[in-house]
């Protein structure tokens, strides 16, 4: 039983947790800066990026795909900015134009190219393949200390560990700046912080998180994880530091419970097949948000009407 858990469930849960944290941490700042939907836009343009990368290289391999996705995210952010300024259009609509347009282009190119031999399709991009990231060589807990067996862990795990560590350390290093820019751009300017650089870096970090998480868990989870854990955390406290910690806790809870319910829940109801883990993690994060909306200690803003 334990052995089976380690072989089939440990790595997906770990990857789910790390992907969730990678998205939730930058999500805190996005929500406070009212840019929550940039994560939504970025996760939509990952598909065209991957398709274009596939056309250029002709193979499905990780590095070109990640680069293509990151490139597409960058192009999207720049296009949104250009359309906003050139056309004097409000940010939401500019985003809507850009990401739907790029997504449509991605689907069109995908339909035109012969991808029948390789596993590249829209559904895969949306749902990810969390369940397939297994660790067959593992034999019980002692495998965690066996270097040779550890090497057989899926590459996705190492990548998401790297990205999650990168995002966490950047957040810690630039904490003071992030905090000041998030709450008071004017003040930040007067003390010499270039808020535009911080803002742009935040978008880049968001893109990195989206792309890395997307690879293993798919787009849906990315959107949910950018917003639900930090939004729920926002209703728990008034302190930014504690809010970030809450968001990490919520992301971990969502990943663990989501995966377990998806994998084992159907068995309790007598069904043999599991359901989408990525989808279920998104649902659990939504339930957490719903609970905090109803019972979170800091759910109301000062003077908000109660009804």
């Amino acid at each position: 039983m334990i052995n089976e858990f380690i072989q089939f469930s440990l790595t997906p849960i770990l990857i789910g947790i790390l992907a969730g944290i990678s998205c939730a941490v930058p999500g805190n700042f996005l929500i406070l800066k009212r840019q929550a939907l940039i994560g939504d836009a970025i996760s939509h343009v990952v598909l065209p990026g991957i398709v274009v990368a596939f056309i250029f290289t002709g193979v499905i391999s990780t590095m070109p795909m990640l680069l293509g996705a990151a490139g597409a995210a960058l192009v999207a952010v720049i296009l949104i900015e250009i359309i906003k300024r050139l056309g004097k259009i409000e940010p939401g609509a500019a985003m809507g134009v850009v990401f739907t347009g790029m997504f449509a282009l991605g689907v069109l190119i995908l339909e035109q190219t012969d991808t029948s031999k390789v596993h590249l399709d829209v559904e895969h991009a949306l749902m990810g393949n969390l369940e397939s990231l297994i660790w067959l060589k593992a034999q019980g807990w002692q495998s965690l200390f066996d270097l040779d067996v550890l090497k057989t862990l899926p590459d996705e795990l190492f990548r998401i560990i790297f990205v999650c560590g990168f995002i966490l350390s950047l957040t810690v290093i630039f904490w003071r700046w992030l905090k000041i820019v998030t709450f008071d751009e004017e003040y930040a300017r007067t003390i010499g912080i270039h808020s535009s650089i911080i803002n742009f870096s935040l978008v880049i970090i968001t893109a990195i998180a989206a792309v890395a998480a997307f690879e293993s868990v798919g787009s849906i989870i990315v959107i949910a994880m950018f917003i639900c854990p930090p939004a729920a955390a926002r209703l728990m406290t008034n302190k930014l530091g504690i809010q970030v910690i809450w968001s990490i806790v919520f992301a971990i809870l969502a990943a663990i419970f989501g995966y377990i319910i998806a994998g084992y829940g159907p068995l309790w109801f007598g069904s043999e097949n599991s359901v989408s883990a990525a989808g279920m993690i998104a649902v659990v994060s939504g339930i957490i948000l719903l609970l905090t909306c109803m019972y979170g200690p800091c759910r109301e803003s000062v003077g908000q009407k109660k009804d």
Partner: protein
Amino acid sequence: MNTFVQAMLFQAGYNVALVTVGAILLGIAAGSAGTFLFLRKRALVSDAIAHATLPGIGVAFIIMIWLGGDGRSILGLLFGSAITALIGLFIIEWIPRRTRLPEDAAIGSVLGVFFGAGIVLLTVIQTMSSGRQAGLESFLLGSTAGMLFQDAIVIAIGGFFSILGIWIARRPLTIVSFDKDYAISVGYDVRQIDLLMMGLVLGVTVIGMKLVGLILIVAMLIIPAVTARFWSNRMDEVVVIAGFLGGLSGYIGAVLSASAPSLPTGPIIVMIAIVLFVLSLFLAPNSGVFSTFIERRKTKSNIHRRQGLLTIAKGENVVSSFTRKLLANEGLSRTDGLTDKGKKLVTKILIDENRWIAAKEVYPDKDMNINYGIKLIEETLTKDELLKVDQYIKSHKFKSITYD
């Protein structure tokens, strides 16, 4: 090419013609409904609504199977999707009202969570109907390939009724999107009208799902509206233009996709809309990028010409090299002073300058600084106002500026 022309003339078979008519009607409905959404700055709410339809489709399918049906009845699926979209819409409204989270956080969370739930249900259905293709995935990206006759009919009729609904509700919708405070003051219930608008958007979304897919239906709501905004500043015109652009995208897209089966209908319609958007962004006569650029250069030259001429007339040196070049190129000045043409223009500008100064004294409450020094005063004041200004200049109270 032959099929293309046939499809264009609605001659490529009954189903293709129906799909084309459906795409046109849907495009018109989405374009005009989207305009209100865009002007209320709530464009992305439609994205959440669209994603929130997915669990409804799943639940409806499962219930229909339970009841012993086929599960693929389009009306049942659309009904189910409307229910969950409505729940999603309610939550988007509820979260910012009840908590301190902003609307964009509410939109994003509903989008992600409902879509996640939808994906979970799709995997449930895959295992339920083992061996039998449910074909619900076609709702993600839309498809016309396997479209049944009844699907096309539903889209065409639904599109027609959406347009009718927008037509009937156009007045309150316009007033609320244009000026919320005014709408409140004349007794409209803004929340109810917003709900009505969202209801229309929801209707368009649900109907368009089968054709363009729930991920891309947002594009049909947003892009034509944003595009139309480049062509007019009048609300009623923007709605009509957006409807026209939406219908045009739907028509061309459906025809292209009928003549080349590898082009899926939804994405190709969106790409046509994007092409129209990019063209308008650059080429629109008043607010396009090119005309704005030309207008700006004109204004810059106007200011430099005027100030340069006045400086020379005063007998001072023009410092800016841009101004000097401009005056020389236009034959207004030489190294030794103004040309005859330049002198003529100075006289004209002096009259205008005096009129501006006088106008400020005659109408001290009027804010005219926006155009002072840039446009001629005739373009700012009415004829009667100008007459009054001229009378004031002739009276002895005003001391005109003159140069020799």
